[in-house]
């Protein structure tokens, strides 16, 4: 057993020291998850993707518009997405961002309301409009949380643009009233202030409705959370690339001369092959573990309870390893194994639904795809991300284990022919 683990550990170390392998194993699936989720679902389609983004709001504005912006962040509609803390301690809030404990701080300046509705207008001073301050709402962002902080910025941008539109709308309304003789120039100042303020206030207040409307619209359009789907999907797709590469190394070791040398040591063929199999399995397991943890921590994807995720992952990697062994036993050269591995991984990805929702595939394809670990894995993770527990994924786990046993048996027959 020590020799099997020695070979397995060597394979794990050599794989994780290969920069190209690291890109394929870790960087590529993570990047593709983001790209595909962004392209098809704007990162979060149904609230199941990013959630609980920690945000601080520092409101220096005593007027009503600062309050409107603060209320926008505290609205129930954004309750799942944001975890808002209103504070007066700006330094502490900035420190929380620096310490990666928050995604952003929204700093509402004291003159926000004044910049929208100058107080001088109410006392009849027309120059107050021209002399109103240029106010800046600052969003202090965490560069390590680019997606989360960009969401916070977009909320602020949308609020301010609506308020500005409301104010401009007031000015247009006053101009039209004057042109139609319904308003005298003497009345314009006070009426204009009243209309502009009302329009801006309505715009600010309607911010909540706007957010609610957009969220509801997206859900009805897609009804599908791309980020939550893509994170495990890309991990499974690239797991197949990784295990195929592991299978290839069995043939590559023959070319390097290390396999014959291993067989000149007091080690049986079974131990050498066992070590290679364990190496492929451990590498796949490490890759899946890293990707799933990264999806949870960096993208906020809720994969499911650990008690179910662990057995699904163990079974999934076992089935994937089975395919890698069949490939290694069938191919004659490392180059051939490499090509076959790439084709197999992409074909399995297309067949099982790694690139688009599996539910959208015709029934016959979904049935055929059950020969792939991808299909069972997607089914299992689909159930877990939808709130399922271990009991809900027993069938996919059983499917993966049956697949693994069948593939290991097939591989052992093929290996016996090669290494007998």
């Amino acid at each position, binding site marked *: 057993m*020590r*020799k099997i683990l*020695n*070979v397995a550990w*060597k394979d794990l*170390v*050599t794989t994780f*020291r*290969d920069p190209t392998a690291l890109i394929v194993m870790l960087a590529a699936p993570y990047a593709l998850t983001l790209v595909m989720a962004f392209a098809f679902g704007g990162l979060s389609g149904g609230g199941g993707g990013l959630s609980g983004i920690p945000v601080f709001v520092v409101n220096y504005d005593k007027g009503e518009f600062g309050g409107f912006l603060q209320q926008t962040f505290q609205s129930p509609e954004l309750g799942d997405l944001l975890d808002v803390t209103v504070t007066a301690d700006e330094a502490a809030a900035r420190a929380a961002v620096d310490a990666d404990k928050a995604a952003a701080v929204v700093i509402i300046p004291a003159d926000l309301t004044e910049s929208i509705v100058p107080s001088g207008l109410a006392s009849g001073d027309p120059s107050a409009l021209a002399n109103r301050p240029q106010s800046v709402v600052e969003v202090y962002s965490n560069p390590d949380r680019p997606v989360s902080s960009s969401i916070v910025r977009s909320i602020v941008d949308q609020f301010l643009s609506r308020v500005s539109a409301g104010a401009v709308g007031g000015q247009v309304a006053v101009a039209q009233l004057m042109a139609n003789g319904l308003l005298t120039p003497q009345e314009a100042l006070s009426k204009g202030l009243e209309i502009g303020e009302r329009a801006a206030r309505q715009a600010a207040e309607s911010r909540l409705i706007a957010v609610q409307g957009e969220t509801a619209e997206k859900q009805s359009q897609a009804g599908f959370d791309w980020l939550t789907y893509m994170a495990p999907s890309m991990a499974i797709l690239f797991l197949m690339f990784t295990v195929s590469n592991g299978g290839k190394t069995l043939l590559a070791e023959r070319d*390097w*001369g*290390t396999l*014959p*040398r*291993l*067989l*000149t*040591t*007091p*080690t*049986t063929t079974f131990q050498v092959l066992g070590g290679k199999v364990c190496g492929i399995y451990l590498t796949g397991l490490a890759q899946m573990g890293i990707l799933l943890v990264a999806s949870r921590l960096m993208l906020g994807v809720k994969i499911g309870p650990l008690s179910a995720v662990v057995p699904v992952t163990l079974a999934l990697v076992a089935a994937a390893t089975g395919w890698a062994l069949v490939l290694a036993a069938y191919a004659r050269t490392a180059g051939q194994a490499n090509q076959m591995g790439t084709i197999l991984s992409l074909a399995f990805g297309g067949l099982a639904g790694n690139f688009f929702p599996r539910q959208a595939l015709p029934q016959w394809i979904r049935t055929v795809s059950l020969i792939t670990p991808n299909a069972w894995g997607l089914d299992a993770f689909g159930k877990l991300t939808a709130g399922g527990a271990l009991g809900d994924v027993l069938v996919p786990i059983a499917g993966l284990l049956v697949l693994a046993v069948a593939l290991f048996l097939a591989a052992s027959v093929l290996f016996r022919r090669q290494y007998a």
Partner: protein
Amino acid sequence: MTAIVQVRNLSKRYMPENVLAVDDVSFEIQQGEIFSLLGPNGAGKTTTISVLSCLLAPTAGDAFVAGHSVVREPVGGKGGIGGVPQEIALYNVLSARENLVFWGRMYGMGGQQLARRVDQLLEQVGLADRAKSRVGTFSGGMKRRLNIAVGLLHKPQIVYMDEPTVGIDPQSRRNILDMVKALNREGMTVLYTTHYMEEAHELSHRVGIMDHGKLIALGTQKELTQQVGEYETLRLHLGEDQDPAPLAEALRAVPGIVQVSATDHEIVLIVPEAEDALPPAITKANELGVKVRSVDIQEPTLETVFLHLTGRALRD
């Protein structure tokens, strides 16, 4: 002396090509000696070593390494063997130390014993200061030395070295030959294969000469050269634009010339007395208009033996 390796009527036929790579070979290697298998490429040396390493099953016959049959108990015999393959068989992304530790564990070693042995071997092969460097950054000579160190890790009873100097610079080659001699002085038995006559000559206590899968001669260097009696080797170096074939053909008809072999720009004659054979050889060259640039006369060597036995030079 005790025979540590006994080879009995060993044959190996590759299928489906149906190539008989080793044909009824028998020999013994005594404990503490350097035994060389000398022969041109394709002679069957590597196949023989592969069978003795339990990598290939023989088609017929058997071999015993430290008393273990390579056919019936292959794993039992492997512990006494240290293999140094012809191709460098190391992991490039692992460091020199990591490679040695990995291979040591495959030989069943571990703990402090392995750590000490790794340090000792790194010193011995001159790589102690590069212990933590990845093997992929090493020169060919450094890799060769580490390749040998792996085969010595578990202090085997016999080490097989399959053409360990192929493709390296003269200085690294010198280092390896000195290392082999030093190992042997410490009591290590060595099975060494080469197609370089000079290496076999320098290292070996006994030599087996292989050609076309057969062991065509076996013995000490003195015993082998005695097989060609008192013959000498006469080399005629021709100009680069000269064709040696017509002259070689003509010389075969000259009385007293035992063997004639022609390479690119050289004709090698085996003769009882070089001084007697030289005048008629030069005369024939003049008759055919072939320019002879220089002449060498050598005492009998392993190459003379090979030439005598096969009619071909080792480099053919």
